[in-house]
């Protein structure tokens, strides 16, 4: 099994998506309102928005973890109804590694759950570890790793089944600035190599613009897509000088303006 090979990206199509949460005190929370969105195969789409605008809700819906109140989600023409598509991988803000399992066994968890041949996937898991710079860490326990290393393992776990769609919910939100910077560059390198579709949720404007082909800016609750911005910058992009790039600055400014107009960012 060759891990270096490219993964066929999935196509995501969302129409009229609405999500209302029923709360205990019978006040319904409209989290997402009428989202229409198509994500092309192999594209990297980032979603930015203020806290509580429904970003995680969008991801959970696409992942098939919660049921939509209205609308339709399709991944590769398969209608997603409260049941995850088999070809997705999810990375959350916390690494969610099982502390009683070694790094390798954590990566192999999806294989076990799908009743696939675990032994046959060990070389692949080890190759993934090598690619994220954790060669030889397979037999360590998560508690022996730093936060950044743990999140790398979580990414390996999401990639072990070569997901056509990689869903990431603020994956670098819990990391320190320096580690985050490295992870952003590594993610770009990895995605360039694999070519799968990525839906990347973040509240960091900088990382969204840096990484994505397309940035969706969401409005405060109820979440709507306020701006659909195509990022036209050549790759590979370099974090160290991206900020001096006028194109990059322009995109960031545009997103900030939207947030200022919506009162998400207030100038003093």
């Amino acid at each position: 099994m060759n891990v270096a090979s490219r993964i066929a990206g999935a196509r995501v199509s969302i129409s009229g998506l609405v999500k209302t949460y029923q709360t205990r005190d019978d006040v319904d929370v409209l989290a997402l309102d009428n989202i229409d969105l198509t994500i092309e195969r192999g594209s990297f789409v980032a979603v930015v928005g203020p806290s509580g605008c429904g970003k995680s809700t969008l991801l959970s819906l696409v992942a098939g973890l919660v049921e939509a109140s209205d609308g339709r989600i399709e991944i590769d023409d398969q209608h997603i109804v409260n049941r995850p598509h088999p070809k997705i991988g999810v990375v959350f803000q916390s690494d969610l590694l099982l502390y009683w399992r070694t790094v390798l066994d954590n990566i192999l968890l999806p294989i076990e759950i799908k009743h696939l041949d675990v032994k046959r996937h060990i070389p692949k898991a080890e190759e993934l570890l090598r690619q994220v710079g954790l060669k030889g860490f397979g037999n360590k326990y998560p508690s022996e790793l730093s936060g950044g290393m743990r999140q790398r393992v979580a990414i390996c776990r999401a990639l072990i089944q070569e997901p056509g769609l990689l869903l990431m919910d603020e994956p670098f939100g819990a990391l320190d600035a320096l580690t985050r910077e490295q992870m952003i560059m590594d993610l770009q390198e990895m995605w360039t190599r694999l070519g799968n579709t990525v839906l990347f949720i973040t509240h960091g404007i900088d990382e969204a613009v840096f990484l994505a082909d397309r940035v969706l800016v969401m409005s405060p609750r109820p979440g709507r897509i306020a701006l659909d911005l195509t990022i036209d910058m050549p790759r590979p992009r370099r974090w160290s000088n991206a900020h001096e790039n006028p194109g990059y600055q322009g995109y960031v400014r545009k997103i900030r303006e939207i947030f200022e107009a919506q009162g998400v960012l207030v100038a003093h």
Partner: protein
Amino acid sequence: MARSNVLKPEALKPDAREALAGRGGKTAPMAVPVRKKRKRRVLERYSAIMLAGFILLLWQILVPLSGLSEFILPTPAAIVARIVEDFPLLAMHGYVTLFEVLAGFGLGVLIGVPLALAIFYSPPFQSAVYPLLVALQTVPKVALAPLLVLYLGYGWAPKITLAFLIALFPIVIGTVVGLQSLDRNLVDLTRSMGASEWQTFRKVRLPAALPNIFGGCKVAISLSVIGAVIGEYVAAERGLGYLQLQANAQFDTTLNFASVAAISALGVTLFFILSFIESKVVFRRDTAR
């Protein structure tokens, strides 16, 4: 990797609250013991033994000086000599108490864990049973002993029942707390991999709850000993509690102390056995490799 935490001195005195809620809580990863830590532990262990030895020595020296008769306070040496001398007697009664404790505790696990699962998985069940269980917990179980004898007679039944009733609560609470303290995102994670609830339970919920379940069990087994002995105090013809009562009636204070030592030894041994099983089970590498 060192797996054993059997001889940690702090394991000797389980603080019920800590054992129930503390270890393996929400996100705190179970520390992997490191060699350096182990060295310190060994040192701590010896310091406990040294302190105990010092107290016994002081006791041994002060008793003759105080002029107290051995009917009031025998020396440690006399007690040890008596334990050796009467070992068959103590062992015979010890087996009885051991059986009662194990039966009561075993029932506690057999009934407590499924009960906890039902409480965890069924909200209606939880709202119906949980308050009752907490209410039951506020009844001093010891006060039930005479009633249990009245209803269940003088044989095994009241002792086992008492040990069971005392053991049940910490086991149920430990298990429920362990299951509830799981990071909800972990369930999302396994579901996103296509896991069934059974798979999520087996691969995540249960292993994550095990430290709390064992915490509950360790509290429970120590309490079970108390339950069984109290049962024997009320009405019995065998068991360490009965033996102690006999010694008391005959002003045989040395045997009285020997019984206390045997009861403590029973509790500590059972606790250590559970800790040993825990060290084998909780860190188990659960996968096909």
